[in-house]
Each structure stands twice: as C-alpha cells, then as structure tokens.
C-alpha cells in the first residue's frame, strides 16, 4: 500500500508542479499581442526558450509515468478519482507559489469540481 501512496504523490505533485512551472514560464513569456497563426508561432518559439517551461516538462512526464504504473497496479476507478486531488493541490500551489488571489467562490468551485471528477470517474 505504501508504494501506491508514493506513486499517487508522484502523480499529484508531478502534474501540479509541472503545470505551475509551465504557468510561470507562460507568464514570463507574456500574452501574445493577437491570436493569429503567425503571432502564435512567434509566441510558441519564445515560450520554448523559457527555462520554466523545460522545468515543467520532466515533472509532467514523471506524473504521466506514475499514472501508467498506478494503472498497472490499481483499477482506474481508484486512480482517476484519487488523482482529482490535484485540483486542490494545484489551487494551493497557485495561491502560495504563483501568488494568485483565490477567493472563497473559487475555492468552493474547485472543491465541487474535484468531487464531481471523482464521481464521474467512479461511474
């Protein structure tokens, strides 16, 4: 049971850590001036030169492999609902690492989404 908990932590913290690093990279890259193909390509090129983006990619890869390993050990009806905890962990990360303002309405929404994803995955 201990190894399942370790891989679940790798899955949750890997995915949220990776997404937070990518968010930081995107914020540093800056908003594209217009949503046109040429400017989006220029924006993508600039984002790919950002270190935070490349810090996020291995973390997301780690979480993906943790997901595959967990799926080989446990039923999907356990893995996906348990991984929905990443919505709550991600919101804590957004507040304390990215400095976002998380209002009460946003917290309630996140908790509802987390519970909803768990119920949908349980089927």
């Amino acid at each position, binding site marked *: 049971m201990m190894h399942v908990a370790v891989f679940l932590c790798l899955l949750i913290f890997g995915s949220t850590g990776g*997404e*937070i690093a*990518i*968010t930081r990279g*995107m*914020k*540093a*890259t*800056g*908003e*594209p*001036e217009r*949503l046109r193909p040429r400017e*989006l390509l*220029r*924006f*993508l090129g*600039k*984002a790919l030169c950002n270190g935070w983006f490349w810090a996020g990619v291995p973390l997301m890869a780690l979480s993906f492999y943790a997901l595959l390993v967990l799926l080989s050990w446990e039923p999907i009806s356990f893995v996906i609902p348990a991984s929905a905890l990443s*919505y709550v962990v*991600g*919101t804590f*990360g*957004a*507040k304390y690492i*990215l*400095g*976002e*303002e*998380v*209002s009460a*309405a*946003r917290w*309630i*929404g*996140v*908790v*509802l*989404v*987390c*519970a*909803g*994803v*768990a*119920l*949908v*995955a*349980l*089927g």
Partner: protein
Amino acid sequence: MATEGRLRVKTLVMVCAMVVCANAGDLMLKRAMLQIGAVELSAPGLWHAFRMTVTSGTLWIGIFFLCGFMLSYMTVLSWADYSYVMPAGAFGYALLTFFAVVFLHEAVSPRRWVGVVLICVGVLLVGQTKPRTTPVAREALA
C-alpha cells in the same frame, strides 16, 4: 469594464478550444489503439506496435489535436490564472458524458450525473471569479 469582459470572452474561447482538442485527441488515440490492437510486451511485439503507431493516420490526427490542446493551454496560461484555467478545463469530463449519451446512446448512472452537475456548478462558480489576479507582461514589450 470592457477590458475585463474581453479578457473573460477570450479566456472562455481558449478554454473551449482546450477542452475540444483534448477530448478529440483522446478519442482519436483510443480509436487508433483499438485499430492497432493489444500491445505484446516482447521485443518483436513492441517493434510491431511502434511501426503500427507511426504509420497510423488516426494516431497522427490525435497527436495533431493534442498539439492544439497544448498550444491553447500555454496561450491561455500566458494571461489567465492557473487556479481559473485548471478547474474550468474539467468541463471536458461533463461534455464527454453528454456526448456519450447523445451520440453513443450509453447508459449513464445517477452517480455519474451527480458528478456532472457538481462539475458544472463548480465551473460556473470559478467562471464568476476574475480570470486574472496577477500582473502579466505583454509579449510585444517583453
């Protein structure tokens, strides 16, 4: 106020693009893997699966949609909060359930419907909040 409304609309459009691309990509990958069949965990089996996957048109369509998802995800995160985009993207779970009922005529349990309702209410609540609470650089000036 107009800027806030514009920000909300473009965030909504990009989140919709994210959800559509992610769902379409996943469906295409699933269809491709069904066409290829179960992968045998042996050297010849893995080599066969590799050859089948790189030559599968359906799989490449799936990868194309997943690239679209990644681009829209990265773009929306350049201006919107992570704590706004992440739960809003979960709307895809609800959308997939609707598609399963409408197009595939699948039976959906009451528990799953409760989950869909919770997701929709959660996304609506998050959608009422400000999409951006941190300063952001403009790319042209950065």
